[in-house]
């Protein structure tokens, strides 16, 4: 007989026993240790059917292939650049993967990207979870121009983007800001109106705060409407 020891939507700490018995399956940041299901990280429990899923509230970004991330160029070598994306090691962007055009034949890579430049890039190879190779060869990937940068917790990124980008589109349209969200939790914002930049950032921070609340979309819509006026929010 499996005993579930926590309620749906309970916040649990690492090491906390979620269930005792073999009747449930662990998912997310929950794991099975003999006949117990245990939490691996600080997170929120989601019980659906026979699945006990633990959603981490805060997390460290673990790079996955095809993730689009934002990072800063930290160093230049003869063949590529080291990029700081907030991870435990710098990622590598080789000259060959810059834009497909130069074939690594440019003599001085600093004429293309220099220290301090911020880029959007795609993860195309990951070894051992933190050795990352990047490419900028895909559509929309580029060196970013003036704007603001904020950091959010990586597990919250899916909620900030929303289903098929619906959440982030709502914010972009309401504030008329350009926003690029990296899977690594780094976000670039630029609005012709600096006050709208502030609204966009506060909205994103609100989503981060309330990420696992039900009815999040409505809450955020209401928050935006208060700031920019009802007619401007879709």
């Amino acid at each position, binding site marked *: 007989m499996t005993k579930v020891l926590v309620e749906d939507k309970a916040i649990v700490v690492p090491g906390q026993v979620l269930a005792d018995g073999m009747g449930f399956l662990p998912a997310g940041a929950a794991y099975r240790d003999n006949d117990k299901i245990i939490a691996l990280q600080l997170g929120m429990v989601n019980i659906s059917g026979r699945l006990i899923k633990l959603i981490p509230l805060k997390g460290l970004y673990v790079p996955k292939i095809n993730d689009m991330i934002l990072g*800063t160029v930290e160093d230049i070598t003869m063949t590529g650049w080291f990029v700081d994306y907030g991870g435990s090691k710098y990622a590598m962007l080789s000259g060959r993967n810059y834009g497909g055009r130069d074939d690594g034949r440019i003599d001085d890579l600093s004429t293309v990207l220099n220290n*301090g*430049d*911020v880029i959007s890039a795609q993860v195309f190879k990951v070894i051992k979870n933190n050795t990352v190779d990047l490419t900028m060869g895909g559509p929309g990937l580029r060196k*970013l*121009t*003036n*704007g*603001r*940068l904020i950091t959010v917790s990586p597990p919250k990124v899916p909620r900030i983007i929303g289903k098929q980008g619906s959440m982030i589109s709502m914010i972009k349209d309401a504030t008329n800001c350009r926003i690029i969200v990296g899977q690594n939790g780094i976000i670039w914002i*630029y609005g012709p109106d*600096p*006050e709208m*930049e*502030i609204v966009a950032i506060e909205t994103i921070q609100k989503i981060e705060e309330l990420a696992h609340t039900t009815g999040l979309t409505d809450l955020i819509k209401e928050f935006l409407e208060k700031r920019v006026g009802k007619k401007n929010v879709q």
Partner: protein
Amino acid sequence: MNIVTSHVRTLIEKGIRFDGRKLDEYRKDVTVEYGISKKSAEGSARVKIGTTEVVAGVKFEVGKPYADTADQGSIIAGVELLPLSSSHYESGPPSIKAIELARAIVDRGIRESEAIDLKKLCIKKGEKSWTVLIDNYTINDAGNIADAIGLCAMAALKDARFPKYDEKAERVIYEERTDKKVPLNELPIPITVIKIGTQLVVDPSPDEEAAMDARLTVTTTSDGKVCAMQKGGAGTLTADDVAKVIELSLKKGKELRKLIEK
């Protein structure tokens, strides 16, 4: 120049800040808390300016006064920029930034304003005097730690009470605290203003500090005088800038001083 610094500079030139404040506006939440380590420190305080947080503590020692100031005690100020408070700080001996803050901000302000009458720290001329040691630590650096440290040091001194001194045994009895306060004549308050392009900005955030050309910290007293100044940054200031910064420092210094005056 990185994209955020560039954006800061473009907006500041138009008088716009990332958090919507005016150029001469201090963050709204400035708080002072006393006795945060009262079981151990003879005086202590915590100051928060927005999310910037610093703490300070006062300890007393008794020793032999210097030969040339035989009838005076002394003050020693220290500042540590803890790695706990920002990813920019490392463990180890004090950096030049910490030393500058200790000497030019805390020490100079107190010394030059004669905030503490050192003669009142004398116990026996030529033989015994008090040393007041004030140590400041950053807990969260979200910009403008200089002003937070300056205010916190004064708050901790206000909070301080002398421990008992056993003259016969020549020993400080820390377990027994007296009601005797540190004799403060003055409350010097440092205010930092940075220059970005042609604009002067008060109470800078970390993004603004990273974008600055120059910085001037001016310490003022309650009677409207300047007792210390320290310029920083690789850029220059005009004489007009200096005059404007002094004006701002007097104004903001007065406002902050109210928080610890009572």
